[in-house]
């Protein structure tokens, strides 16, 4: 998440070079993941770090590691575990640091992700962000997560504006509609006046509304620095203690970019009937943008795994034919683009991807981690086992309401089903935001007791 490192990385000698195959580029990135720029707390922490990363790397390569690796289903849980809640850590950076460091000290894990998705509440307040609810802001103070307010933030007749220049569209149309403090950007002229007369371009920055919008952005950016410092500190502390991150960056399926942010679920579904050509064209346009953004965050983090939460292509949401027409082709191009950069896409298939298994099989061998929510994992292993590492899926109900022994038993069955031959990561179907900490601890126990490979 610490983008300021980006330049440093490019000056180093470990960057993947043009002309390398994707496998060679990936080996370079794996090497960098194995030796992060951090001083380990002890030689043992360094040893443990390398063992953990190697465990994941082997699972990705469809080889047998020493044992099944685990991704604990933890996102905001450290806030709750430390006796607070999400609201508290969104507004109090010291509390954020305290809670996450406490979690690092008290849990055994194979990987740990810094709190980069615990958005700073004050920054959201400063820009008057309208398309999200968070604890204390549209949700009760003790709500354990935030929620997205979907809408048609892009009306259907603006597809051409988006396609012509997505950056211009974001600045002059999307931001003013979705952030109250940035409404002034509505008055901005096109930001690409290539006519060689700078005065006409400059003079708009005298407008008080435009100035106020830029000022709000500058102030929010300043506030963000305080938060970024804590996120960076926690992430470094986790590395130093020997816990690798498994989120090197985050990507999105183009269909979800349009459906989540711009057109809404209803809007994009109407577009599939009324303007399928425009929808397809817009999604194509977003592919290189998604790839570029993701590569740069992976370069900064040093971890090559790219988390891609998939939303609107799930089983009940469209037919296989619609999936193959509207959802999969551009997602596949994004993933192939990332793979070509030496990165490892980890799509998190929210909902039911059972009907999609045969379709998503079509990727280079050992290039992707498919992370499943609702899934018959035996079938997933059967259909994908020879081409992709799979991860999942202790159900939310067991994780959040079950006893530790039930969680452990679920893990045992998952390991028995998915682990043989390698290519499996034990994880939850969703994150546990509240609940019994022992339900997390027994996941590690299960991996150690049932997940050891005897070779």
């Amino acid at each position, binding site marked *: 998440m610490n983008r300021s490192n980006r330049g440093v990385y490019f000056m180093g000698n470990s960057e993947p070079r043009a002309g390398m195959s994707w496998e060679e580029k990936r080996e370079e990135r794996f090497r960098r993941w194995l030796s992060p720029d951090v001083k380990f707390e002890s030689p043992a922490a360094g040893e443990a770090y390398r063992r953990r990363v190697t465990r994941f790397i082997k699972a990705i390569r469809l080889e047998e590691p020493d044992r099944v690796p685990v991704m604990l289903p933890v996102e905001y849980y450290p806030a709750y575990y430390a006796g607070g809640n999400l609201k508290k850590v969104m507004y109090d950076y010291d509390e954020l640091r305290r809670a996450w460091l406490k979690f690092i000290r008290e849990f055994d894990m194979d990987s740990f992700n810094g709190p980069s998705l615990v958005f700073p509440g004050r920054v959201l307040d400063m820009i008057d962000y309208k398309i999200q609810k968070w604890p204390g802001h549209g949700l009760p103070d003790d709500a*354990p997560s935030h929620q997205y307010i979907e809408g048609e933030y892009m009306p259907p007749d603006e597809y051409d504006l988006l396609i012509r220049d997505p950056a211009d569209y974001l600045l002059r149309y999307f931001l003013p509609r979705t952030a109250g403090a940035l409404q002034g950007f509505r008055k901005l002229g096109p930001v690409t006046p290539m006519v060689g007369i700078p005065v006409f371009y400059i003079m708009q920055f005298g407008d008080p509304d435009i100035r106020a919008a830029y000022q709000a952005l500058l102030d929010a950016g300043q506030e963000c620095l305080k938060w970024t410092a804590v996120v960076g500190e926690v992430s470094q502390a986790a590395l130093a203690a020997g816990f690798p991150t498994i989120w090197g960056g985050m990507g999105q399926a183009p269909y979800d970019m349009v459906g989540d942010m711009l057109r809404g679920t209803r809007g994009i*579904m109407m577009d599939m009937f009324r303007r399928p050509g425009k929808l397809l064209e817009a999604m194509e346009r977003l592919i290189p943008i998604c790839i570029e953004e993701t590569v740069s965050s992976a370069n900064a983090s040093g971890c090559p795994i790219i988390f891609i939460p998939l939303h609107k292509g799930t089983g*009940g949401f469209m*037919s296989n034919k619609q999936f193959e027409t509207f959802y999969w082709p551009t997602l596949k191009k994004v993933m192939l683009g990332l793979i070509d950069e030496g990165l490892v896409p980890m799509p998190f298939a929210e909902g039911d991807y059972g009907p999609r298994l045969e379709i998503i099989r079509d990727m280079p061998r050992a290039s992707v981690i498919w992370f499943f929510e609702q899934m018959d994992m035996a079938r997933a292993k059967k259909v994908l086992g020879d081409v992709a590492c799979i991860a999942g899926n202790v159900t939310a109900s*067991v994780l959040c309401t079950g006893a530790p022994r039930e969680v452990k038993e679920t893990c045992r069955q998952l390991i028995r089903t998915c682990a043989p031959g390698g290519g499996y990561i034990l994880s939850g179907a969703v994150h546990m*935001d509240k609940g019994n900490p022992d339900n997390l601890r027994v996941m590690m126990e299960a991996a150690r007791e049932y997940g050891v490979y005897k070779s």
Partner: protein
Amino acid sequence: MPESYVNLLADLKEDEVLKLTKKRIDSGEDPMKILEDSRKGMEIVGKRFADGEYFLPELVFSGELLKQVTAMVKPHMSGKATQVKKAGKVVIGTVAGDIHDIGLNIVDFMLDVNGFDVTNLGVDVPADKFVKAMKDTKAPVLGLSGFLTPAFDAMKETVEALEKAGIRKNVKIMIGGGQMDDEVRKYAKADAFGKDAMAAVSLAKKWIGVN
């Protein structure tokens, strides 16, 4: 003509449906007959959804078509809307703290095309609002929707609120959505868990006693 009108609507032929609707209105046909045909078309859409031939995009699009047809027909209605006989009352809503409504609206659609009188309370519905709606409507069936894990507790609290109000025994409660399963059903002390909108329809039919 009515039969092909029904089929055009079921096949989601937007242009043809709108053209034909206009033609039928212009020829002075009873608007109620047009609406009745639309309802038949939507029934077929619901059946195709249940059979796995249609998916969410088709439901959304058919809903939009119906809205357009209704808007065209309405100005020509004499005011006396004849009530279509309903199979029974069902109250549905997404529980407190959760604002997801996609699944909720599918259930609404499927119950409606199957003849139920649906009261949809929307999203982020507090327990006392469910209690009030159950008292007001005297509906025998309540459907609780939720997508997120915090909904587990919200569902439990809603069921408890109905108990406290003394009306739990008069109401059958079904739950559904994202992370729900039979474990959550037990946790929340609901009567049934349904994995999709078709399950909601068959549960409601079973409980209300409709074939």
